[in-house]
C-alpha cells in the first residue's frame, strides 16, 4: 500500500516523439486512480515509468514520499498488467500466475498450499479457472487479457498498475469485470493506477483521475470535477458521450447570441454577463453544452426559442441521440426515447445558460463562473 507521486515526467522516444511532457499527479494511498486519454496520449508510457520498466528521461516517481526513480522494477514491488498481455508463452496459465509468486524476493511469503489456493481463487474470480493447464497460444484474446490481469492480481503488491486491462473483453464481460475490479480494489484497499481510453470506465471506477492528451495532463480531479467543470475544450469533448456541443457565441448586453439564429437572444444571469463581457475584447467565446442539457420541445412557433430540424435519430435503448441542424450548426441532444421526435421533424430548443460551459476561443480554457 502506497501513495504514488509523479513529478514532472518527460519522455522522448528515439529522440523525436515526445511521449510525455511534464506529467505530474498524485495518487493517494488506497485510491483508485484513472489515467484517461485517447490512444497515443502517453498512458502506457506513464505506467511504464511508474513501474520502472522504461524509465522517464526527466522527473521523479515517489512511493510514499520515497524517491524510487532509480530503483529496479522488482524493488518497487508493484504489479503490472500489460495492455499487450506479455504472457510467458512457454508456461501454462497456472505457471504464468505462479511465476510472480515464486520470485526470489517473495519466496518466503507463500507456502506451497497458500500459493496454489491463491492462484485458483484469482483464476475463478476472473473466469479462467478451467483454463489453468492451457498455454497462452490456446487462448482467445479476452482470455489472455484475463490471465495478464490475473498475474498482476495474484500478488499483494504496494500498488497495481493496470494498463487497459479489460479493453479486449466483450462488452458484457467488460461490464462485469469493471464491477469486480472495483470490488477487489475496495476489499484489498491497494492503490491502483488504471489506464483506459474509455471515459465511461474512468468516470465509473475512479476516485480521482487525470485526463492525458498528447503527453500532457489536461486536468486532474474527481470524476465530478472533470465532468461538471472540464478545464478546457479537449476535456469537455473527450469526457461525456455523445461529446459536448461547442459553438462560437457573442455577447450583447446581458444576452447571448448564437450563430444558430441571430434573432434569438439567450438571457444571462448577472454574474455570467459580467464574466463574459470582460472577455468580449478577447478573440471570442465558445459555448459548450452537453447533449443531455439541451431541451427539445415540439414546434410551437415560439420565437424566443431556437429553431432546429431533426436530421437523424439514433436509438440507444432507453435513450436516443438526435442530430439536428439549427441554422448552419450541427447540434446533438440526448433524451429519453419515448420523448424523441421523428426524423425530419421541426423542433424548438431550450438552452439554459446556467447549464452551459464557456471557453476562451484562443486559449481553449474554461471561463470559470463565479
Amino acid at each position, binding site marked *: 500500500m502506497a501513495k504514488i507521486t509523479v513529478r514532472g515526467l518527460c519522455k522522448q522516444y528515439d529522440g523525436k516523439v515526445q511521449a510525455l511532457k511534464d506529467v505530474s499527479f498524485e495518487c493517494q494511498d488506497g485510491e483508485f486512480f484513472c489515467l484517461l486519454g485517447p490512444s497515443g496520449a502517453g498512458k502506457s508510457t506513464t505506467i*511504464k515509468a511508474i*513501474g*520502472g*520498466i*522504461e524509465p522517464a528521461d526527466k522527473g521523479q516517481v515517489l512511493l510514499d514520499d520515497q524517491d524510487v526513480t532509480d530503483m*529496479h*522494477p*522488482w524493488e518497487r*514491488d*508493484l*504489479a*503490472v498488467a*500489460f495492455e*499487450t*498481455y*506479455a*504472457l*510467458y*508463452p*512457454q*508456461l501454462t496459465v497456472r505457471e504464468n500466475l505462479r*511465476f*510472480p509468486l*515464486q*520470485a*526470489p*524476493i*517473495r519466496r518466503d511469503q507463500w507456502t506451497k498450499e497458500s500459493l496454489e489456493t491463491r492462484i485458483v481463487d484469482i483464476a475463478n474470480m476472473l473466469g479462467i479457472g478451467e483454463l489453468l493447464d492451457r*498455454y497462452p*497460444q*490456446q487462448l482467445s484474446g479476452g482470455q489472455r487479457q484475463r490471465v495478464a490481469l490475473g*498475474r498482476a492480481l495474484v500478488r499483494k503488491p504496494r500498488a497495481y498498475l493496470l494498463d487497459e486491462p479489460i479493453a479486449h473483453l466483450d462488452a458484457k464481460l467488460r461490464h462485469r469485470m469493471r464491477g469486480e475490479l472495483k470490488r477487489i480494489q475496495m476489499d484489498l484497499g491497494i492503490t491502483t493506477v488504471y489506464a483506459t481510453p474509455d471515459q465511461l470506465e474512468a468516470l465509473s471506477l475512479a476516485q480521482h483521475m487525470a485526463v492525458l492528451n498528447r503527453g500532457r495532463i489536461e486536468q486532474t480531479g474527481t470524476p465530478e470535477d472533470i465532468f461538471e467543470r472540464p478545464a478546457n475544450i479537449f476535456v469537455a469533448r473527450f469526457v461525456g458521450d455523445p461529446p459536448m456541443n461547442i459553438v462560437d457565441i457573442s455577447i450583447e448586453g446581458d444576452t447571448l447570441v448564437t450563430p444558430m439564429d441571430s434573432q434569438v437572444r439567450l438571457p444571462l444571469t448577472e454574474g455570467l454577463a459580467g464574466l463574459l463581457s470582460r472577455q468580449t475584447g478577447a478573440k471570442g467565446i465558445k459555448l459548450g453544452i452537453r447533449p443531455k442539457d439541451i431541451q427539445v420541445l415540439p414546434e410551437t412557433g415560439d420565437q424566443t426559442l431556437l429553431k432546429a430540424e431533426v436530421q437523424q435519430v439514433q436509438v440507444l435503448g432507453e435513450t436516443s441521440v438526435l442530430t439536428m441542424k439549427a441554422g448552419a450548426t450541427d447540434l446533438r441532444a440526448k433524451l429519453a426515447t419515448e420523448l424523441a421526435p421523428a426524423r425530419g421533424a421541426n423542433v424548438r430548443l431550450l438552452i439554459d445558460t446556467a447549464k452551459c460551459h464557456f471557453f476562451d476561443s484562443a486559449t481553449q480554457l474554461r471561463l470559470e463562473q463565479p
Partner: protein
Amino acid sequence: MKSTRFVWSWILPAFLLFLIIGIIPFLVAGSYSFRAYSFTDSTAKGQFIGLNNYRRLVVDPDFYHSFAVTFKYIIPAILGQGILGLGVALLMSSAARRMRLLVPIMLLPTLLTPVVIGLVGLLTLNPDFGVLGIPLFKSGLVKEAMLGSAKWALPAITVVDIWHWYPFVAVILLSGLLSLPKEPYEAAQVDGANAIQTFLRVTMPLLWPYLVVALLIRIIDAFGIFDIIWVMTRGGPGTVTEAISVYAYRNTFRYWNLGYGSAMVMVIYVIMEIAVEILYNALTRRASAEQV
C-alpha cells in the same frame, strides 16, 4: 490441368538439377551396393551379388570403429558449438549496436572452406612453429606432436571444427535473440525474476526453435565431416580419426571398391535419416506439446 502444367514448368529446372545431382547418383550408388564392382579386381566387373556387400559390412570391425569415431567427434563438437554459440550470441545481443559490427569478423572462420580451416589447424597446432602448438608442447601439456598422437588427434580435430562452426550457431541465435518480443522480459522484471530465472523461463523457451534449427543443421553436416580430417590427419594416426565418411572414401576412392563403398553410403544414409528424425522429434517435442 493447365494450372498443373504451369506449376510444373516452374518447378522443372530445380527438379532436373535435383534429379541429376541428387536422385540419379543416389540410385546408381544404390545399384552398385548390390554388385561386385572394383577397379582393382578384374573379376569384379559389376555383376549382381545380392546382399554380399552388406553381409561383409555387418561383420566389418573397421566400419563399427569408424562409427564410434564419428560419434566421439560429433557429440562434443555439437555441444561445444551450441554452448559457445549461445554464449557469444547472448554477449552480442546485450552489447551496444556498434559492437555488432564485429559479427562479420566473428563469422570469418565459417566463411572459409573446410580445407583451409584444416590447414590453419595443422599450422596452428604444429609443435615447432604453431601459435598454439609451441606453448602446448613447451608447457609439457602435450608431449608429442598433437595430430600424430592417438590421445590428442581427435580432440584437436573437434576443437578446430568447433572453431569453424560456432559463429554459424551464434549468428542464428543472435538473430533469434534480437527478434524476441520484449514484453515478457518487462513482465519478468516486474514479477521480480532474477537473471537465471529470466534466462531459463523466458529466454531459453523463446529461443528454443532457433537452437533446434541451428543444431540440426550442424548435426546433419557434422555427420559427413571429411575435409578437415583428410587435411589434418587422413584418418590417422592408424585409424584413430577415421570417421565414417573417411572410411567410405578410403574404400571407394583408395581401394577403388565401388560396390562396397556404395553399400556403406547406403547404410550411412539410412542411419542419418533415422537419427535426424529422432533428434527432430526430441528437440521439437516441447514446441509441439504447446500447439495441441
